[in-house]
């Protein structure tokens, strides 16, 4: 055996894919590491819960009270998305390469879209008082809060601040507040509410994509 033979790079192992499939494979593995499939299942549970709530009239039929239960479920979907931000790899992943921000962004955006779709599916055939626009606005806005929360508490506890915000909005709903930063209680066409919700989502998504959720030493082990 010569040095040249020793130094010759080994032949590629069979089954290694080219750039295209490798990208999809990377996305799929990333989603699995975030337990996104289980998260989609959790979102489906939220959709089913919304369907039951509307079908069996758990919510009031009209007025401010009608939005109470749907708001809770929409916030629940947003917390599920926030919790999928958790990475089991910690620093190992951060040092691995440059695709991580894109993967994070794709994951959150995809989960948001799926959440809106699944919740709307749950509302099909029933009367969702505030409509799909408010549903979508609540999901993306409260997800933004969850992502911002994950920067402080870590992803596994990122459900706490969205939950607190939603409870606060329950009070604002009954008191008929008009401030745009309580967007879950505003009408569908309220421009200020949309601006706030989108701004919070954008800020949360940007910071989360770049920095990722807070990790501690224990999360690496």
């Amino acid at each position, binding site marked *: 055996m010569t040095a040249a033979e020793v130094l010759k790079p080994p032949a590629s192992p069979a089954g290694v894919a080219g750039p295209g499939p490798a990208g999809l494979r990377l996305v799929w593995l990333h989603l699995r590491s975030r337990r996104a499939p289980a998260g989609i299942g959790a979102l489906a549970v939220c959709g089913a819960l919304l369907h039951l709530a509307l079908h069996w009239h758990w919510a009031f039929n009209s007025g401010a009270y009608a939005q109470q239960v749907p708001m809770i479920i929409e916030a629940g979907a947003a917390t599920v998305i926030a919790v999928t931000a958790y990475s089991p790899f910690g620093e190992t992943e951060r040092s691995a390469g440059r695709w991580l921000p894109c993967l994070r962004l794709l994951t959150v955006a995809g989960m948001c879209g799926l959440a809106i779709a699944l919740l709307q599916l749950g509302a099909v055939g029933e009367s969702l008082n505030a409509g799909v626009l408010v549903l979508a606005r609540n999901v993306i806005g409260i997800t933004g809060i969850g992502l911002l929360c994950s920067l402080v508490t870590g992803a596994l506890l990122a459900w706490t601040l969205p939950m607190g915000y939603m409870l606060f909005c329950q009070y604002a709903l009954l008191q008929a507040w008009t401030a745009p930063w309580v967007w879950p209680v505003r009408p569908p066409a309220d421009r200020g509410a949309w601006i706030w919700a989108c701004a919070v989502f954008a800020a949360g998504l940007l910071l989360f994509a770049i920095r990722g959720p807070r990790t*501690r*030493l*224990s999360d690496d*082990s």
Partner: protein
Amino acid sequence: MLTGIHRSFGKNKAVDGVSLELGSGVFGLLGPNGAGKTSLLRMLATVLPPSSGEIRLLERDPRGPAARREIRRRLGYLPQNLGYYPSFTVVEFIEYFALLKEMPSARVPKAVAVAVERVDLGAKAKAKLRTLSGGMLRRVGIAQAIVNDPDLLLLDEPTAGLDPEQRVQFRALLRSLGETATVVVSTHLVEDVGAACSEVALMSAGKIVFRGTPDELTARGAGHGVGDAPLERGYSAVLSAARS
């Protein structure tokens, strides 16, 4: 004492007909990855039941809850992957396990202090676990395993992450513990086995392929080319023979 122990995970035979009798002293368990060392250790720790065979630990059958409870009072276990609660301090973590091991309440503080000092973490006693390095965490794991002065001490990769000086101290600690207890150490590091163990077993594919003293293992490596140290050569020689 283990007699004809088998353990399978589906079709995978992790432990395949192992019989062992251990007394006081430090017993090393060597073997390549996937040899079944951790599975064997987990069975000794009463965490995993064998698929078949008989185990007697400290003259008791661990299948009975009362006997198992008594064994666990006198057992210390350090798993390969140490889980911990990051907000606990070193002392709190060890104290927590001392209490779980049903140590008398009055003895706990002193036992915790002794355990902390024995692993040389006195200066970090009040530090939260999340602030510790990997090697220090490993020492915390060792401390919780020895806090109750166990009669049976099971350590899985105990020196992972320890620096050479700490490994020397740890081997000395093992030797002292082995004077009164049965200590089983599973490791990849043959030099740890050579320095601390009075007896060693080598596992391969779920079976024990060698049992003897470190010197006897070294002797088996005479004339074998693979390995940088005599014990490594003996290790490689035994494995090669077992595989062929």
